[in-house]
């Protein structure tokens, strides 16, 4: 599958600390972190300048936060099952994660409705627009994660996810936990700044 792995083995090139793809994955995560750091810094800078709207924090965010933590747990369950070669449980874990992810997305949509109910629209004072941007961009990354889950699931049905072939599910889990952590960061950020 990977170019590099075989090159590494045969030609005496040392394999250093990490699988190149996993390493690249971490670098990608760093770049996503930078996007959100800069957006949240922009939020702080803009808020400090004044002309800011006070917004009631959507209650739904509490629910979606719990959902995303649960989805991380279920994916971890799938990951452990892969280590134990329990195919049924891998599939179960991944499917449950996917369902929770969809519930999370629906939840975020409902929280937008809560915002609209208090007349906070995407177009308007940046205080509101920023919330839409944070949640929207996070969901966009989450959709990518769901696609990744799908790929893992397909491979689980093809018997390609097991204790000797963990790289993919591991990367998927890393990304997924990262997305969970990212949402919790945004959640706390919004609470603390309101």
């Amino acid at each position, binding site marked *: 599958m990977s*170019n590099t792995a075989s*090159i590494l083995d045969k030609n005496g090139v040392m394999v250093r600390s990490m699988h190149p793809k996993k390493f690249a994955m971490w670098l990608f995560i760093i770049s996503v972190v930078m*996007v959100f750091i800069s957006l949240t810094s*922009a939020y702080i*800078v803009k808020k400090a300048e004044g002309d800011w709207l006070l917004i009631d924090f959507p209650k739904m965010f509490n629910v979606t936060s719990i959902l995303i933590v649960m989805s991380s747990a279920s994916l971890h369950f799938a990951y452990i099952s892969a280590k134990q070669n329990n195919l049924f449980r891998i599939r179960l874990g991944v499917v449950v994660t996917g369902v929770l992810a969809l519930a999370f997305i629906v939840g975020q949509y409902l929280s937008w409705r809560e915002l609209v109910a208090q007349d906070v629209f*995407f177009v308007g004072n940046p205080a509101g627009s920023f919330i839409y941007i944070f949640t929207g961009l996070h969901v966009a990354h989450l959709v990518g994660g769901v696609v990744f889950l799908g790929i893992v699931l397909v491979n689980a049905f093809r018997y390609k996810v097991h204790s000797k072939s963990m790289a993919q599910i591991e990367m998927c889990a890393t990304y997924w936990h990262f997305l969970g952590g990212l949402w919790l960061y945004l959640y706390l950020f919004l609470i603390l700044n309101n």
Partner: protein
Amino acid sequence: MSENGDMGHHDEHDHDHEQSFISKYIFSTDHKIIAKQFLITGIFWAIIGGALSVIFRLQLGFPDMDLEWLRPLLGKWITTSGKLDSEFYLALVTMHGTIMVFFVLTAGLSGTFSNFLIPLQIGARDMASGFMNMLSYWFFFLSSVIMFISLFLETGPAAGGWTVYPPLSALPQAIQGSAAGMTLWLVAMVFFIASTLLGGINYITTVINLRTEGMSFSRLPLTIWAFFITAVIGLLSFPVLFAAALLLVFDRSFGTSFYLSQIYIGGEALPNMGGSPILYQHLFWFLGHPEVYIVILPALGITSEIIATNSRKPIFGYRAMIGSMLAIAFLSFIVWAHHMFVTGMNPFLGSIFMFLTLIIAVPSAVKAFNYITTLWKGNIVFTPGMLFSIGLVSFFISGGLTGLFLGNSAVDINLHDTYFVVAHFHLVMGSASFFGLLAGVYHWFPKMFGRMMDEKLGYIHFWSTFVGVYLVFFPLHYIGIAGFPRRYYSFTSFDAFSTFADLNSFVSIAAILTFGAQFIFLFNFFYSIYRGRRAPANPWKSNTLEWTTPVNPGHGNWPGEIPKVYRWPYDYSKPGAEDDFIPQTVPYSATPESNTDYENELAKPEEVTPKVKAEDEA
């Protein structure tokens, strides 16, 4: 290529045996081909970017000239009175900046040399992911196509300056260029960012994970250190540009107000409330300042390598070079507000940023000092690559000095947005980095194409360009000190500046001649690809690994095993040694005559692979 066959034998499923033309030259995953694709695309953009600057220099130097003859090319952008349209002038300046900074000196420079040299100099078969690498080029290509198309729009390309500050860039009604041209600019930049990130992730992963045996970080050539640090800077800063652009897209197309507030345009109030254009500047310059180092660091890395090789001396202060690059990289993230001294920022904050900015002069000076001490008393070989490297050092110093003036927040009140800034960055960034690019092409051309470029033409090219650059950019300091603002269509509409009319004509003539001199290079480049003298294996008697490959390396770079590395890359003119260079592949145990005591210790446990081609597929 026969090497290709060999390689296929080693790793069956990795490399196709019979590559079609398309998979070999178009959708190639070979880092060397991708590097050449970046180079050729970069050259294409450099010609366009240079040509645009010639057109606006005509306007600045010869405001009364009849430009009717440009109508076949520019159409309605030549007014009925035969003058350049003033809005199109702004579009030209904007596209010139965008093209040069991003497409030529970022993609053209990093894309070419990081791709080409990283695997070859660290001893790897290819990049960590050939596919991502290919994707990186094709995103760049797509971005290029979109940006190119924007040049031909009815309303013209983006015209708000390469920094595209809102509100000018956010409001289509503000200037024609902020209509469709700006939209395409943003779309193109999104693809560009994706390309840079894909490339950068690959460079970092490759340098960290795929170094050959013995290639520790303290034995890496400075080129690789430079590319590596550049990629890290890019990874941290380009996402911020993405965030800035994203908010701008929403302001432009969806009516949000991140950057907009209380604007009257054409006597009408816009609905946008609560935003701040300064916010954009913070986000932009958080990328923008690191970006200038993304542009210069690879050039400095290339220069380190070329100057050491052609001075036949070890680079002076190898560790100091690495340390100063790391320091520059770190500092580059905390000085962005020096571009914003006059945005009404708190003067106390201004002095903090002034302090941080001026600290950058220290590592920069360390680098300049080390180049000069490397040259000092060297057996200098003046190859064209070497001349361009020395030229780079010259520009880096003369342009860096003016940075010290600009970094002073009080002095900058006077100098900001004048031609003084233009002179500063064209020397320290534009010309220096461009010289790094040219130096790299002259130096690694034999490895890229298996042939040599013509030296005589190289010398002519160097001297005309070197002198030309100073003739063009030095006078701009005076114009700037006199207070002339950049991005103004005309000098002559202000009496105060009419005394500079002759100087401006002079600059324009010098610019046109310098631009013309680049065609010597273009001829030399393309002619030598087909007709150049065949290159020997190691034309510059260099130590680094790329010269241990076959003259025309195939996919996989080394036909047999990847060489091991035993020493750092700068053993030039080592006392006691027979030759004046000892390649990195020569073990200490083979050079008892030149080893230091410490190296003799290292020689003892060395496991040297026998010179016989090892049978693979163990």
